[in-house]
């Protein structure tokens, strides 16, 4: 853990013919083309080092160009760790999905380790006919550990219009009340699964509860969001997997 803070930007671009014209690893963000699953070109983010540490500025830029089918996952959970710097770590994800393209963005969890401070920002630009599956899971502390500070913002625009904009803030550096009955109610894991599909414009998803602390809701545009809170990472994943198989048969 004895290293200076770093800046790294990894880049992915996928074409309709299944090719990856851009696959650029950087620092701790190592990208591998992995065995395809179904019709998708698959890229796995391999965390070559424990990251991000305080002060690090990491970014991933991913583009599914017109007609492409891209699946991006990760080999392991992202551990936000305290660094020598008092600065928070920043992790920016910038996603673009073109016309008739599909992106499945299914990374492992972000685990906020005690003493860490991570700001995650994900910005997604979708073309009108683009489809998207995007999962985010926030785990507050390793087993039995008090969390660090974790702030995540997810902004999704479709054809330039806002579709979803959400910020979550947890831990000792977050504003008060994050652990109270309006936000997490003592739970230590939460997650979101967003599915955008122009077909929902004709046939919107019906709101549905997935047990006591999870729901699938149609957004104001052609999209559905599953939101779950649970005691741990496994329980959140189970709930989101249920939603995934229902909402995204593609």
């Amino acid at each position, binding site marked *: 853990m004895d290293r200076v803070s770093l800046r790294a930007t990894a880049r992915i671009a996928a074409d309709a013919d299944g090719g990856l014209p851009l696959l650029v690893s950087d620092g701790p963000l190592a990208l591998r083309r992995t065995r395809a699953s179904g019709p998708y070109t698959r890229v796995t983010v391999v965390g070559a080092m424990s990251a991000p540490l305080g002060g690090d500025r990491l970014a991933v830029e991913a583009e599914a160009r017109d007609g492409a089918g891209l699946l991006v996952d990760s080999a392991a959970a992202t551990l936000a760790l305290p660094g020598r710097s008092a600065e928070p770590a920043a992790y920016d994800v910038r996603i673009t999905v073109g016309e008739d393209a599909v992106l499945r963005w299914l990374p492992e969890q972000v685990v906020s380790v005690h003493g860490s401070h991570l700001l995650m920002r994900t910005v997604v630009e979708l073309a009108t006919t683009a489809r998207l599956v995007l999962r985010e899971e926030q785990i507050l502390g390793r087993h039995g550990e008090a969390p660090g500070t974790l702030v995540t913002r997810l902004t999704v625009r479709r054809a330039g219009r806002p579709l979803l904009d959400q*910020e979550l803030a947890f831990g000792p550096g977050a504003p*008060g009340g994050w652990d109270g009955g*309006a*936000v997490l*109610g003592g739970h230590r894991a939460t997650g979101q699964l967003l599915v955008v599909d122009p077909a929902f414009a004709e046939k919107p998803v019906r709101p549905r509860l997935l047990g006591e*602390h999870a729901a699938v809701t149609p957004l104001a545009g052609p999209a559905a969001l599953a*939101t779950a*809170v649970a005691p741990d990472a496994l329980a959140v994943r189970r709930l989101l997997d249920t939603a995934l198989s229902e909402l995204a048969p593609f």
Partner: protein
Amino acid sequence: MASRAALLVLADGRFPAGGHAHSGGAEAAVKAGRIKDASGLEAFCRGRLHTTGLTSAALAAGAAHGLDPGELDAAADARTPSPALRAAARKLGRQMMRAARATWPCAELDALATAFPRGAHQPVVLGVAARAAGLGPEDAAHCVAYETVSGPATATVRLLSLDPFQATAVLARLAPAMDLVAEEAARAARQGVDALPAASAPLLDITAEQHASWPVRLFAS
């Protein structure tokens, strides 16, 4: 100078805009045992204030500042994943519009009513109403910050038979946080729609859907 009395008229719980019928998620939280007493109410209200409270306050501040209400309404939709909460926000917006047009008639309110016949999101309408009343972004944000916590507090008094003195003490303890939230909201609103906060609360979104499915309930949301 903005009229302090106009702010009191707009912020008054008796302003006939229908807010009293909504618990701000407190009814579901009481039933689930997440609010059992004054301290649970305080944690609930503090969390609501810093999440949907900040987000809504900034939308209202933006409208009071003169940002385009249509863009603000789209921003509100994107910040409200729960259809039950979107419906509640539009219903409250409609009721706020009726009261505001009678109270502070003006062309901007008329135009907003015409553009959104089924109701715009309530904070947007409140912000335009504040503007019509000669109030500024901070005033609108303060109104929203206060109603974000006063709604659940009043509802909890009814739902739990909580001592009303204790509920009011909770509101007083939250006053410094409300001031900060209102300032932050107004600051963001002055930078435009793209700078608006989007703080959200997973449990409020989830339990709003649960609550909407109850056959019998005391509050509309």
